[in-house]
């Protein structure tokens, strides 16, 4: 989001899924999982992407790493377009973008040693062989706080936190410019979560890697991000720098989300006035017209049911999609 040459430039990206096989072949409505999203991430920066289940944040991250093709829009990684790109271009671009997931146990082949897992991207790309390869694996293990002798062990011999370190080492093997982290610490115990967050921050400082950090946990997002984007039903409803966002979230959904986070501080927690949202998230097959949030919004008026609000800049630099905020 700094001026020059963003690492990732996402413009008007939409991902619609058309379910097959309706009742007697009748067509069913498309699921608009992501519906017109824009943002950029600069070198060495972290964008925290926040939202609740079903808001489209995981679909969006899968699209950015090229696992799901976008229905519309442009995704540029270091200036190279991946929307509609050929296999060859995709292969070349993917070197710069890697992904880590919530459950590291599912990301590792149980029958491959972790040394083999980390070496694989280097072998596939023909980057290193023989002794050079072993050395590179040792370095990667050291970077994530593991030891060289760990290379010959199997995933089941490690704890959850160590496995997440292994997955991070593999993601870093190709020295990517961007790592998409989809809820990387949600399955971990508190003390282990702190270790992984420390590691991610430390790696960014040392290597200048950028993160798209997807999470539902606003305390974690504030801890690690430079920029914050809040998604609701496939759209970004607010985007701002971390400090601006946490000082004064403006969209009523963003405010409700922040007020709902239970803080690990009983005194602050008691003083907090909670904005409890009524109702639940509507289905993404049936997004309400106008502002998608108007069915649950305490500020909603007639215009909200008719006109979709666009992201517009506010005096402090935040972008907010709301008629009333």
């Amino acid at each position: 989001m700094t001026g020059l040459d963003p690492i990732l430039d996402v413009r008007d990206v939409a991902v619609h899924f058309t379910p097959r096989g309706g009742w007697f072949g009748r067509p069913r409505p498309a699921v608009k999982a992501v519906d017109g999203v824009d943002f950029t991430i600069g070198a060495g920066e972290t964008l925290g992407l926040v939202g609740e289940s079903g808001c489209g944040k995981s679909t969006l991250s899968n699209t950015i790493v090229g696992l799901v093709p976008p229905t519309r829009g442009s995704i540029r990684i270091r200036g190279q377009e991946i929307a509609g790109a050929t296999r060859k271009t995709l292969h070349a671009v993917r070197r710069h973008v890697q992904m880590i997931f919530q459950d590291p146990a599912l990301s590792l082949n149980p029958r491959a040693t972790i040394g083999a897992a980390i070496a694989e991207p280097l072998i596939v790309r023909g980057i290193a062989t023989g002794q050079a390869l072993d050395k590179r694996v040792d370095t990667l293990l050291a970077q994530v706080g593991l030891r060289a002798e760990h290379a010959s062990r199997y995933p089941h011999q490690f704890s959850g936190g160590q496995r997440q370190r292994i997955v991070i080492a593999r993601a870093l093997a190709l020295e990517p410019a961007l790592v998409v982290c989809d809820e990387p610490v949600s399955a971990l115990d508190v003390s282990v979560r702190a270790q992984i967050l420390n590691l991610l921050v430390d790696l960014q400082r040392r290597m200048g890697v950028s993160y798209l950090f997807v999470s539902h946990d606003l305390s974690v997002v504030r801890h690690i991000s430079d920029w914050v984007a809040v998604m609701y039903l496939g759209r970004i409803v607010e985007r701002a720098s971390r400090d601006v966002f946490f000082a004064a979230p403006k969209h009523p959904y963003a405010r409700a989300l922040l007020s709902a986070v239970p803080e690990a501080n009983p005194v602050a927690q008691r003083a907090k006035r909670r904005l409890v949202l009524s109702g639940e998230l509507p289905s993404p097959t049936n997004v309400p017209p106008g502002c998608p949030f108007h069915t649950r919004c305490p500020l909603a008026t007639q215009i909200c049911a008719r006109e979709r609000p666009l992201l517009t800049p506010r005096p402090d630099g935040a972008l907010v999609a709301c008629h009333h905020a």
Partner: protein
Amino acid sequence: MTMSIAPALTVEDLTIDIDGASVVDGVSFSVGAGEVIALVGESGCGKSLTALALLGLLPDAARIVRGRIMLDDVDLVPLPEREMRRVRGSRVSIIFQEATASLDPLTAVGSQIAEAYALHHRVSRSEARTKAKDMLVAVGIPDPDHRLGQYPFELSGGMCQRIMIAIALICGPRVLVADEPTTALDVTIQAQILDLMKRLVAERGTGIVLITHDMGVVADIADRVAVMYAGRIAEIASVDDLFARPCHPYTALLLAAVPRLDLEPKQWLATIEGKVPAAGDFGDGCRFADRCPLAGDRCRVEGPPLVELGRGHRAACWHADRVAELTGSAA
């Protein structure tokens, strides 16, 4: 809030063995009417086994070898299953993390709530159904007549957890055990459920034993907190005392490991090196000694007892007076 009157539930010296290892060891706490006590700790600390023991639902491999679980003046430990069944669901009940998985997918939720009542009361079907409907209103479900006839798959996760709470509370139990009740829910729904639990506790005087790993949830809803580590209570205190003045190194490090909205972003978070010892490798000393920055020779050979450090504030650490050094001002 206070322990002035007789508690609803008192656990004394509860010890549970699996294969000869005490995975829950000498755990004591109590919960009063309308009070919320949180059992906090990381995976494998024994908090869920403790919760299951309160309901007489321990897995076959686990055995209570010592201790008492007093519900008012009845000890639940020696009760035969026949009698435990009368207590379970009526005087002590439980809700779990996966509400959707705890409900019968083939039975309308109204019947499931009514059944919970009819099991413990001689009532007609229609009376049980009326009770179920009142309970749905009490847990904040709009349009109860319509909802009674719905099946779990038609309801969201938050709605299913409300149904579970309705089932758990319909007989007016003295104590509700809530095992990670909001962990699977989104934050805005979690906030709704926590508010509901707070309101019901206040209205009905039910005591809650809350099992959680989330310090935010603890700060939000608990009156008192017991921090468990490797099967033992490391520290127990009122929620304010525990967060303001942790007296066990494990508590202090756990609190400092949580990213908070009021701290500097990207700063180094406290970590706890090493891992929890395996059951069977506990030894005689303090079970946290191998990971504790304050541990000395004594800690490795002699387990510290839980000692009173302030009003209702107890910690099991030989170096409780030095714990503040660990996190500086962070505590």
